[in-house]
């Protein structure tokens, strides 16, 4: 960008604040910008900037071809996907800095952004480590020293790939192959940022590791790639938060998250996302659970224009256990298309899915579940519960549970419910002195309360705050 243009946009984009915590942005200053549009040149640009080994460059190019060859999944998913104009999106924006270990060294604008979102404060309070990503790259990454001494690795994916390539390469792309779906292929072509975590055998990380993903730029696509390996008997909890400012144009967030829980490991992945209403959020998340391992996804989807996300667990070893707890809140004009996948691939594996969705106004919530227990397995169990809450009449909810349980020694239990908060109920609550937004918040919080009680304290507080804000926003 020329300096004049930069100044002009600087003025045009003066810091823009409203009461939702994430809705502000600072003028952009990027040293590296892959430009607008997507081609093999874009992939080369990213690989050049990141100075990547050849195998990754090839991996990216192949993935891009897969992406181009795959149709949009509109035969089953929302036609709104057709409104993503891939040639109008910018695929890589970064300032070329390595992530710092000290908060002081983080560039000012970025620092201000994360400070307003409460990041360093949270780190001091209750986290074992933090990584903060701004647009395409991590700007800050730090972990308590004691963990490093035990061999725990917690870095950005760029750094993981470079400095820990033997572990990285062994698992990268193995849980979610490039061609899994169109968006995993896209991510595989242009991925940047995300976390790489390795927890050595037997190490129990007491406090959560947290990553924070922030989109600051307009017309931008964020494609982080996260890979977490919990080695035998280890334990770790990872939490991610995400925000973006409210732009007029569409923003794309398309992540791939791969988890590997080795024998007896316990891995929890918690997401509280609060995207603004212009974000297409199309994320592929899957775990492999080996023998007696436990993987739990806690997924709270608030905001975005369209979210498509179905965290899954492949239960690969005997007695492995998988769980997905998900909360989706679709306000006016939003579509939360979420669910879970449980692929049972060993005897005595168990899975549990609890999904609660809330639709407000014209908001729409869709649940898609896939539970697969093949015939040759013994002693497998699945439990699926999915509850929907509709707040006022135009809201809509659909569930598409696909449960295939074969074999005599296996069982699945499925429950679904739909409840409604009508204008009459809102009036009743208002008559007692609650504002419309408070009345809605109270109903929503009541609806999700039994799930939220299982969350880490800090996250349940955060979630409640986000629900309150979203309800305030939805009554205008």
């Amino acid at each position, binding site marked *: 960008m020329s300096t004049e243009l930069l100044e002009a946009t600087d003025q045009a984009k003066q810091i823009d604040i409203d009461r939702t915590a994430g809705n502000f942005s600072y003028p952009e200053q990027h040293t590296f910008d892959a430009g607008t549009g997507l081609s093999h040149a874009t992939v080369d640009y990213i690989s050049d900037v990141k100075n990547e080994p050849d195998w990754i460059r090839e991996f990216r190019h192949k993935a891009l071809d897969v992406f181009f060859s795959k149709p949009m999944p509109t035969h089953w998913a929302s036609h709104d996907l057709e409104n993503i104009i891939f040639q109008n999106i910018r695929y890589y924006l970064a300032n070329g800095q390595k992530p710092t270990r000290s908060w002081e060294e983080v560039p000012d604008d970025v620092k201000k952004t994360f400070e307003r979102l409460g990041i360093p404060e949270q780190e001091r309070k209750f986290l074992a480590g933090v990584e903060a990503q701004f647009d395409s790259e991590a700007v800050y990454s730090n972990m308590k020293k004691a963990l490093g001494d035990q061999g725990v690795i917690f870095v950005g994916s760029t750094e993981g790939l470079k400095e820990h390539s033997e572990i990285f390469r062994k698992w990268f792309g193995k849980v979610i192959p490039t061609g899994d779906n169109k968006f995993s292929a896209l991510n595989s072509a242009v991925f940047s940022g995300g976390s790489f975590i390795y927890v050595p055998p037997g190490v129990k990380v007491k406090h959560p590791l947290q990553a924070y993903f922030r989109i600051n730029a307009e017309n931008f696509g964020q494609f982080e790639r996260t890979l977490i390996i919990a080695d035998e008997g280890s334990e770790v909890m990872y939490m991610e938060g995400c925000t973006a400012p409210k732009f007029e144009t569409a923003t794309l967030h398309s992540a791939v998250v791969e988890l590997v829980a080795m024998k007896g490991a316990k891995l929890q992945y918690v997401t509280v996302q609060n995207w603004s209403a212009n974000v297409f959020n199309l994320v592929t998340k899957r775990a492999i659970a080996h023998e007696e391992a436990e993987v739990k996804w806690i997924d709270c989807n608030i905001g975005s224009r369209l979210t498509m996300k179905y965290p899954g667990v492949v239960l690969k070893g005997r007695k492995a256990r998988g769980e997905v707890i998900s909360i989706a809140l679709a306000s006016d004009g939003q579509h939360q298309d979420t669910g879970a996948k449980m692929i049972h691939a060993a005897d005595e594996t168990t899975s549990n899915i609890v999904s609660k969705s809330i639709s407000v106004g014209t908001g729409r919530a869709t649940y898609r579940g896939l539970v697969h227990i093949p015939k040759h397995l013994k002693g497998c169990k699945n439990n699926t519960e999915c509850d929907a809450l509709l707040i006022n009449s135009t809201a809509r909810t659909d569930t598409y549970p696909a449960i295939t349980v074969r074999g005599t020694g296996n069982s699945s239990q499925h429950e679904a419910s739909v409840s409604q908060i009508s204008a009459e109920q809102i009036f*009743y609550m208002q*008559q007692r002195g609650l504002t419309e937004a408070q009345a809605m918040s109270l109903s929503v919080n009541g609806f999700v309360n039994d799930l939220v009680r299982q969350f880490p304290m800090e996250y349940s507080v955060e979630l409640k705050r986000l629900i309150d804000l979203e309800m305030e926003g939805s009554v205008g």
Partner: protein
Amino acid sequence: MSLEIRNLHARIAANGTEILRGLDLTVEAGKVHAIMGPNGSGKSTLSKVLGGHPDYEVTEGEVLLDGVNILGMEPDVRSRAGLFLAFQYPMEIPGVSNANFLRAALQARLPEGEELEATDYYARLYEKMDMLEMDRKFTARSVNDGFSGGEKKRNEILQMLMLEPRYAILDETDSGLDIDALKIVSHGVNAMRGPERGFLVITHYQRLLDYIVPDVVHVLVGGRIEHTGGKELALELEAKGYDWIKDDIAQAVSA
């Protein structure tokens, strides 16, 4: 100090049917007014219009709560200004416990930044529940969810006792209550009577007025107050029905 309703006209927003047709009524602080009237005459509509229900449009008139016109206000603002409505058909609010609901309602009355003191709150809540002979288990149950008809009515009065409104409208609170419950609930209402507070009690039955003795009795017919008298009017209506009032109206119209 009064709740003053002046020439109130209101219609159903969806189809324009006028239900309240020039209704005048003043409830002074310290007084209990009763409203009786045939089914469909507009009694519940009056209470909902006062509460600001979105199904109705006010086309004419004023409602002054201690001199302030409340008609432009949101329902929750009216509530916090001191208006309470015990519903004829209380809503069920699944997932929201009674205790949390009342707590949120009280919290909404505090200035920003001030937190309701939990210990005091529960002490008061239990005291009022004891007064209404309500089991403690109702605190944890969702608001009115699966409550019996009588339990719902009792719960309305519990909310009134907790929120301490300036003016309370009780819409057929007696229907659905058994004899003992009627006494208990009436006792709760009487305990709240005082110079600062006005009541508008809607009922079909004289029996309630034996327990909550009104100062004034009105008859609402066809969206207007057609007759007003003392507490003996209720007895007269019980004996004679509403036909004589309707006849009076017909005569007045033809005269």
